[in-house]
């Protein structure tokens, strides 16, 4: 256990060293937050301030800023470290390490996520609150449940990214998979719009998929848009299911490893 804690702490510190990148990222998150919030304000102006599909204007704005704040915490785009280690062959060295391969990467990712929560998530949400009248958590219970929900979101997101990376054993060029994953998350994770805005048949399918657990459920819990136990339950289910799938796919891939060179 100690080694995984140590790995997490290392990743945590690593993020903190990139101060310039952090400031630049905060600026970019804020600009995109303002752009998305403006678009929703423009849309809500056409309803005369009425709720749409159970989402008030303030709730939608709050979700937009929560999502912008969570974006780096769940690291939705462009994490291909494992795929690259498969390409370069350095994965063979990682297999030799006396640690569980999935836990090795998961503990590193959790350390990274905690650092990003502090230096990217929290400041972005504060900026959002300064610029707009965002809602506080619906109740003290929702506020408390928000934190484990964020942790589960990171785990589901990690397992999803890990699965995509592991396809590197079979697919040499991961860019195609990356594009499809990005488009899917844009549409079906609730990152850009509350999922309730999707057409009903699509929504019925989306609720059966894991993408919602990656970024939107923490926001829904914060806002009281989903019963706390239902939200956490969905996330718990997908965390277990997708980590199990990761371990299984990895065991298939391991058999394929052929290392060249001396």
């Amino acid at each position: 256990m100690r080694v995984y804690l140590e790995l997490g702490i290392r990743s945590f510190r690593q993020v903190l060293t990139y101060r310039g990148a952090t400031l630049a990222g905060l600026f970019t998150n804020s600009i995109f937050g303002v752009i998305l919030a403006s678009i929703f304000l423009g849309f809500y102006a056409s309803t005369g301030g009425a709720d749409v599909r159970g989402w008030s204007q303030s709730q939608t704005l709050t979700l937009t800023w929560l999502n912008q704040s969570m974006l780096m915490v769940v690291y939705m785009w462009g994490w291909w470290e494992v795929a690259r280690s498969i390409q370069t062959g350095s994965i063979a060295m990682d297999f030799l390490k006396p640690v569980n391969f999935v836990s090795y990467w998961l503990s590193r990712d959790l350390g990274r996520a905690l650092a990003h929560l502090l230096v990217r998530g929290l400041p972005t949400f504060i900026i959002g609150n300064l610029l707009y009248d965002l809602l506080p958590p619906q109740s003290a219970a929702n506020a408390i449940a928000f934190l484990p929900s964020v942790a589960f979101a990171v785990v589901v997101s990690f397992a999803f990214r890990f699965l995509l990376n592991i396809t590197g054993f079979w697919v040499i060029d991961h860019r195609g998979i990356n594009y499809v994953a990005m488009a899917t998350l844009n549409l079906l994770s609730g990152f850009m719009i509350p999922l309730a805005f999707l057409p009903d048949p699509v929504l019925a399918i989306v609720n059966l998929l894991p993408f919602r657990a990656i970024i939107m459920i923490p926001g829904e819990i914060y806002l009281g848009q989903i019963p706390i136990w239902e939200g956490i339950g969905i996330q718990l289910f997908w965390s277990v299911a997708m980590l199990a799938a990761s371990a299984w796919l990895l065991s298939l891939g391991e058999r394929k490893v052929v290392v060249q060179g001396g």
Partner: protein
Amino acid sequence: MDSLNTLREELGISWRIAALRLRGQMEYRSSFLMQIAGSFIINFSELLVLFALFNRFDNLGGWSLHEVIFLHGVSQITFSIADTLSNGIDTVPTLIREGEFDRVLIRPVSSYLQAMVSEVSLRHLGMLAQGVIIFVYALATIDIDWTAAKIILLVTAIVSGIALFTALFTVEAILSFWTVNSVEAINAFTYGGSDLAQYPLHIFARSIRWLFLWIVPIGFVVYYPALAILDKPDPLGLPGFASYLAPVMALVFCIVIGYGWQLGIRHYRSTGS
């Protein structure tokens, strides 16, 4: 006359380099096709989000779905061409960090043109194709009173927009002459600017509007020409000729950026040993 001949010669050389780079990429056909399909899919997902929103809301700041799609089309055509032209410029920070930029400077061809063709990639063709498709879709669904003046306005706006975005992509390269840190904050202006240009400018907060009209004049190359073409009123209350300022604003912006590039080149100190 001499300088004109030099320019023609330089453009000729640059074109040949660009053509060689393109032929190189065609050798990796599946990778090339995948990149094109990829940018298509990602932009398509964003378009689906727009359809979903208009399914639940009546209008966006008084604009209909098809009018917003018109903006998407114009903005995507402009941005994707500029992005294609700027691929090489994007690599300048890396060239500088690795000490490779010296090679560019000792050749007797304009440093900017060389940087531009140092990496030519057509991966934004997917986005361009999509821009054209949704632009045609918008034209088919909106009743526009086309006049010769409007067509000229549209073409000038697109050309000005390409120049503006290309210059904007150069800013990161210019900054990298002074700092070896990558300056990612500039993405907020390039990608953020192209996102913003896909929506009617008047829905944005005043500070953002001001930024994208008077500092990075993207509003003048997409939104204002679109107002005149679609015969929409201007809720921001600028004088009517604002719709025709695209070439002027783009030119001023390009001159400033060009001056910045010259300063950068003069300031450049090689990192190599």
